[in-house]
């Protein structure tokens, strides 16, 4: 292996990335906008999870003037947002399409409401409404206790997920799709005609992508932290190590996809086939706690699952490197397997 040749390809790939203004901007802008968007949405203590429609309401602005007939504990509950409709037909249409969870006719006694039997949210709101109408139990059956210690905001929990997701897309498409395109248009064939070896080429692609991923990560982190002020309870160095292991692993997975093929369409489908389940099952947006055991077990085949688990342990729980060592070890093992598979299958022109 000649380092000079590896360095030449590493530099060429980096230049391409930094000079492709559209892709370069998007790599930073995409995670930044998502984080910023969620930061604004979840700024309050509560989120309005349930939507209740009211009719007849002449004007949207007058919704809150027409709720006297509803118990204060229901209408004033922060998890509920009220939406006004002029007619029952309009409200029922929205209810049928699950755009609202419950529909109430104003000023009726007893209260008349409609709810969809197929809507889980509807059943919860119905319970809330019925509970608000029943006089409170005089006995002290419940005792509210506050959570002790660290309280993690949703945005703090979400942040590593969005960074990991961005890393995954960038690694898979930035290597997988790009190398397949190069094979299709003959760039790889031109490189094959030189003394450059497949190992040197793949190593340059791997190192370049890891460098770009970590560079993007640091810039996005600093930008988001400056605006939203993230809480990191663990060591930043440990977090860097976790993300480095994750980016190496996912770039290696990109190399496996890039190892063969000349069809960009097929590769695109393959990348979607891998990235979409990974995005939903690796807990980028929501926890899969409580999901069927087989689903939770199958989520462990994805590198993103282990990256996010380790990142959240460090960032949200303040764990040290030792605590996340199992996840790092799994990521390293996966990296090794992907690199072996990618190097074995790699072809310059098939």
């Amino acid at each position, binding site marked *: 292996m000649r380092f000079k040749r590896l360095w*030449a*390809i590493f530099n060429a790939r980096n230049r*391409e990335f930094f*000079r492709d203004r559209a892709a370069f901007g998007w790599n930073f802008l995409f995670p930044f906008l998502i984080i910023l968007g969620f930061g604004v949405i979840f700024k309050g203590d509560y989120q309005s999870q349930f939507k209740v429609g009211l009719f007849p309401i002449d004007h949207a602005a007058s919704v809150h003037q027409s709720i006297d007939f509803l118990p204060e504990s229901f209408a004033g509950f922060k998890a509920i947002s009220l939406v006004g409709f002029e007619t029952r037909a309009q409200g029922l249409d929205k209810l049928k399409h699950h755009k609202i969870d419950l529909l109430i006719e104003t000023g009726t006694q007893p209260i008349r409401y409609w709810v969809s039997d197929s809507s889980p949210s509807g059943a919860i709101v119905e319970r809330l409404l019925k509970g608000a109408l029943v006089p409170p139990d005089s006995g002290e059956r419940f005792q509210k206790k506050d959570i002790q210690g660290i309280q993690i905001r949703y945005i703090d929990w979400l942040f590593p997920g969005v960074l990991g997701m961005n890393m995954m897309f960038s690694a898979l498409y930035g290597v997988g799709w790009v190398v397949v395109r190069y094979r299709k248009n*003959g*760039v790889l064939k*031109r490189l094959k005609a030189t003394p450059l070896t497949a190992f040197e080429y793949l190593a340059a692609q791997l190192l370049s992508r890891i460098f770009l991923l970590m560079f993007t990560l640091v810039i996005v982190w600093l930008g988001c932290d400056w605006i939203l002020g993230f809480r990191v309870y663990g060591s930043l160095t440990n977090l860097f190590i976790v993300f480095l292991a994750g980016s190496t692993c996912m770039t290696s997975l990109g190399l496996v996809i890039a190892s063969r093929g000349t069809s960009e369409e097929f590769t695109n489908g393959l990348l979607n086939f891998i990235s979409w389940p990974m995005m939903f099952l690796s807990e980028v947006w929501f926890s899969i706690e409580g999901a069927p055991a087989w689903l939770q077990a199958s989520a462990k085949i994805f590198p993103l699952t282990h990256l996010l688990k380790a990142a959240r342990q460090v960032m949200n729980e303040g764990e040290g490197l030792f605590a996340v060592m199992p996840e790092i070890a799994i990521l390293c093992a996966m990296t090794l397997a992907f690199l072996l598979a990618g190097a074995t299958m790699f072809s310059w*022109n098939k």
Partner: protein
Amino acid sequence: MKAIAPMKPLLEIIDIHKHYRRLRAVDGVSMTIGQGTCFGLLGPNGAGKTTLIEIIEDIIDPTGGTILYKGARRAAQFRQEVGIMFQQTALLSFLTVAETLETFSRLYDNTESIGHLIQLCHLEEVNAQLNDKISGGQKQRLLLALALLNRPELVFLDEPSTGLDPQARRNLWDIIKTVKSQGRTIVLTTHYMEEAEKLCDDVAIMDKGKVIARGAPEELIQIHCQRATLSVPKDQIPENPEGLQGFINQRGDRIQIRTENVNAVVSKLLSMGVDMRGVNVKTPTLEDVFLKLTGRSLRE
């Protein structure tokens, strides 16, 4: 007739086959290519030229056969000593012409000065431009510069002037002639007969995966197409001319005379008082050789 001087073979191609399922793209080709020769591989599209040249370049594997370079099987050093210009190649995006040359030069041990190559291939005006922004002719010259970066002993040029306008084609030929004058071995594929006649010392004509003729261009023409065609305005020749040696036929308002003895025919025409300013003489080309050997045109 220009004889080909016996030269030490740089390349020995021994019984090369390449099959794609039922298609025999290359069907038992054997030949040697001498050091310092400009060797042309001619044939219509689909004849197997590119497949054969890519097998020789070690880009694709043959189904069977052997290639020897300097008398031995090609080793890692082969890549250091050959320069390749492919028929269709994209370049790394978002790099300038100079950066592209710089990147590729780092892949070799022994390289030409980039400044010299930029000058040789007339890339001075575009050397700071991105690869995607240069014209077709400039791109071909850049690809040629890349093929010459490592001071190659052997240069492969696969259809180097395809798609270029006549001026750009002639510019490229001038550069190839300069490379040829430096004593390097050139293996060139083309379906432009003029290109082969102007550049090559030795040609092989391929059709359906086989080499059907081999020799110097003049030699092939001499062997296979001895007749020239003279075209004379019909109103200048008597209806039944006597003493004209050759095959005569009428095409529109002209008479065509195909002959092996042009001088005798010209003398006879002059004696008949034919105004020679209206006479066209077409000498045979490699195109005619191909037509004669296969019954088809090279561009079919």
